[in-house]
């Protein structure tokens, strides 16, 4: 199973139902798409992530009805620094898609998905706790794993592994 190079050309990825659905809804939303190692990644414009998820969930063909995971990757010192990563699963179609939103390092914030999937609640709190990314519209955005009075965001790349001493 040799690795095939990633496909990043949006034209040739239009056949994928999730990409096709999002493009049909609003072409400005899809910034970029990537098909690599059998997995589809779609970069979404940062203001539209909630609507994009709603579109994918409600679409009768795609039916991405399950939010598997929300996490974040810190690309410090590059800008845009944060990538919020959403893994959606379609239980009827047995298919996954990855949505990504890029955020700058200055007060990173993105719209919360809790109104689409209540499952986003803990996942987003975890990202807030460990990366310091705010989720607007989250019902209870507080630290979840670290103590309430903890300073700093441990999973950021500029945070030392041993912590500050």
């Amino acid at each position, binding site marked *: 199973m040799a690795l095939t190079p990633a496909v990043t050309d949006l034209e040739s990825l239009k056949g994928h139902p999730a990409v096709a659905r999002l493009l049909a809804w609003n072409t400005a939303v899809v910034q970029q798409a990537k098909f690599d*190692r059998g997995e589809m990644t779609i970069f979404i414009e940062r203001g539209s992530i909630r609507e994009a998820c709603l579109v994918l969930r409600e679409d009768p063909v795609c039916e991405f009805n399950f939010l598997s*995971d929300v*996490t974040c*990757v810190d690309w410090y010192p590059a800008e845009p620094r944060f990538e919020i990563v959403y893994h959606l*699963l379609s239980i009827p179609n047995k298919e996954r898609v990855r949505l990504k939103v890029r955020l700058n390092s200055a007060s990173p914030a993105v719209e919360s998905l809790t109104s689409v999937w209540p499952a986003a609640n*803990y*996942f987003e709190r975890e990202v807030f706790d460990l990366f310091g990314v705010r989720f607007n519209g989250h019902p209870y955005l507080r630290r979840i*794993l*670290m103590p309430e009075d903890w300073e700093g965001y441990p*999973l950021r790349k500029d945070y030392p592994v041993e912590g500050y001493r």
Partner: protein
Amino acid sequence: MILNMGPQHPSTHGVLRLLLEIDGENVVRIMPDIGFLHTGIEKTCEAKFYQQVVPLTDRIDYLCPMTNNLCYVLAVEKLLGLEIPPKAQWLRVLLNELTRINSHLVWLGTHAMDIGAMTVFLYCFREREEILRMFEMVSGQRMMTSYFRVGGIALEPPLGFFDRVRDFAGYFPEKVDEYENLLTGNPIWGMRTKGVATISADDAIALGASGPTLRGSGVDFDLRRDMPYSSYEKFQFKVPVAQEGDVFARYMCRVLELRQSISIVRQALDGMPEGPIKANAPKVVLPDREKMKTEMEALIYHFKIITEGFAVPAGEVYQAVESPRGEMGYYVVSDGTAKPYRVHMRAACLANLQALPKMCEGRLLADVVAAIGSIDIVLGEIDR
């Protein structure tokens, strides 16, 4: 009244703290408070070589170490584009199903004890002990096995291992009958579990519940069958589904899974292919001990893998497996170096725990204990 349950409470299965707002004996609101076991495993992973992360994955969910090992190595193998020989894949399936039985036995024993059936605990741990001994035989460790490697498995199973597993697979179904005799038809067990802590299929999906918690609500979805990995597609098994969505439905799903798992174990034993247990990738897989003593090249590769690790082509993968608790997912990002840029674990329990308030609010306080048991939480996995 606000009642504090945990973090030191026997029925919270670890260090879960629940803030319960109660009105008499009725629960009005539940606020789970987690994080007591947070050890920063995801951060630690970023400072280790790819092969050094395997022992960390055991410690996430200490009841199903092999499942976590498998999920992580599958993710890295996908990043590398490695082909795994059939024998290694079948051994992984075999050990994973034993792990599932192990985990379900702990769940069944503790869950029944929470509700007041003491005997089941002793019976379950009797069989669990045998599984742990088999793990010790094959990996040298009872719980933190770290037996899988990127590219295969660590060692050939020792002589007599397969006979021991076959022996176990022979008598285990009888033991499941024993547990079921004590519980399934027991009217007290029925009163404590039937119609208790119900959750609908739509709510379970919206809250991200997976595994038996989802299947107990009538959603027929199992990653082993629907998105197969490690040649699960070559095994015949049924996915137990129950419609009621209550504690009893989740109990039935898991008990039936015990029987299915032992059938998969038997199939794996019968059809175990011959051949190597490691992939043919000298830059990734450690050479055999014997080769190292005779071949210069093997020695060089060994030295390089141990001191420098192996570089993984840049990219990202999300690999999910069906753990005993639900969808266990590893999201691994590589930047082309020998250390993972980011490892994220999607913990099934974290999502399942979110369903707890939905199950219990408006119900009796005693049902909270039954509900916690029924979602089978492991705090190590939730807090990581």
